[in-house]
C-alpha cells in the first residue's frame, strides 16, 4: 500500500476514534465508530489480511453497530447536556492515558524490528480465506468449538437478561 493511502486511512481511523469519545450525542458517537472501523478494515486489507478486513466490516460495522444503535434508540438516550463535567477527574484520566501513550511510544521506538519495512510477499495472498480456514480447522479445532459454545452461552445469557420478569 502506498504511504499516502496508509496515512489517509490511519488519520481517518484515529480522528473518528477520537470523535467517538468527544461527541456528547451517543448516536453521533456510534456513527463515528462505524467510520473508524471502516478505516481499520482498510488498514487490515493493506496488510494482506483480506478475510480479517471483511470480517471487520461485517461483524463490527454491521452487526455490532446495529446492536449499539438499536440500544441507543431503544433507551431513547438524549445528549447529556445538563451534566457538569468533573474537570479534576477528567484531567487525571487524560493524564494517565497520555502517560500510557508515552510509555508505548518509547517501547516502540526502542523496538528494533519496528524500523524495518515489510518484506515483500513472493506469492499473492488473495486466497487467504483458504489458508485461514485450513489453520482454523486443523490446528485450532478445539478452540473453535469452545468459541461456538461461548457464543451459545452469550446468546442464552442475553435472552435471560433482557426477559421481563413475570411473577
Amino acid at each position, binding site marked *: *500500500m502506498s504511504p499516502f493511502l*496508509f496515512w489517509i486511512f*490511519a488519520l481517518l481511523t*484515529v480522528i473518528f*476514534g*477520537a470523535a*467517538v*469519545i468527544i461527541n456528547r450525542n*451517543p448516536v453521533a458517537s456510534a456513527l463515528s*465508530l462505524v467510520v*473508524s*472501523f471502516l478505516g481499520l478494515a482498510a*488498514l*487490515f486489507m493493506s*496488510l*494482506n*489480511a483480506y478475510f*480479517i478486513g471483511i*470480517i*471487520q466490516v461485517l*461483524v*463490527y460495522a454491521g452487526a*455490532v453497530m446495529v*446492536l*449499539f444503535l438499536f440500544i441507543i434508540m431503544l*433507551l431513547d*438516550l438524549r445528549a*447529556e447536556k445538563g*451534566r457538569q463535567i468533573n474537570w479534576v*477527574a477528567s484531567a487525571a*484520566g*487524560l493524564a494517565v*492515558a*497520555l502517560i*500510557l*501513550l508515552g510509555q508505548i511510544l518509547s517501547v*516502540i521506538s526502542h*523496538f528494533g*524490528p519496528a*524500523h524495518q*519495512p*515489510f*518484506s515483500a*510477499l*513472493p506469492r499473492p*495472498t488473495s486466497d487467504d480465506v483458504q*489458508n*485461514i480456514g485450513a*489453520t482454523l480447522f486443523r*490446528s*485450532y479445532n478445539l*478452540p473453535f468449538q469452545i*468459541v461456538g459454545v*461461548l*457464543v451459545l452461552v*452469550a446468546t442464552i*445469557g*442475553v435472552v435471560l*437478561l*433482557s426477559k421481563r420478569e413475570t411473577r
Partner: protein
Amino acid sequence: MITLGDYLLVSAVLFVIGFAGVMVRRNLIIMLMALELMLNAANLSLVAFSRFRVDTIGLPNYNVQVFVFFIITVAAAEVAVGLAIVVALYRVRQTTDIKDISSLKF
C-alpha cells in the same frame, strides 16, 4: 516506506483513545464503544505482526489471523452481553450514567 512501527503507532494511538474514553466518559454505552476501540487497536497490531513475520514459503503468519478471528468473535459476544446488562439496568434505574450506579462503590 511504511514500516511496522507506523502500524504500531496507529494501534497505540487508537488504544490510548479507547483507554481515555473509558477513563473520562461516564456513559456506559460510550464506555462499551471505547472498549471496542481498544480491542480493535490490539487486533491491528496483531495483524501487523502477522504480516511482518513472513514464514519460509512466503505467507503471512496465519496463526495470528485465526487469533484475531477469535478476538472478534469474543468481542461480539461481550458487546451483546454488556448491552443486555445496560438495558436491564436502565429498566431498574432509568439511567446509563455510572455516577448514578454506586451501590457497590467502597
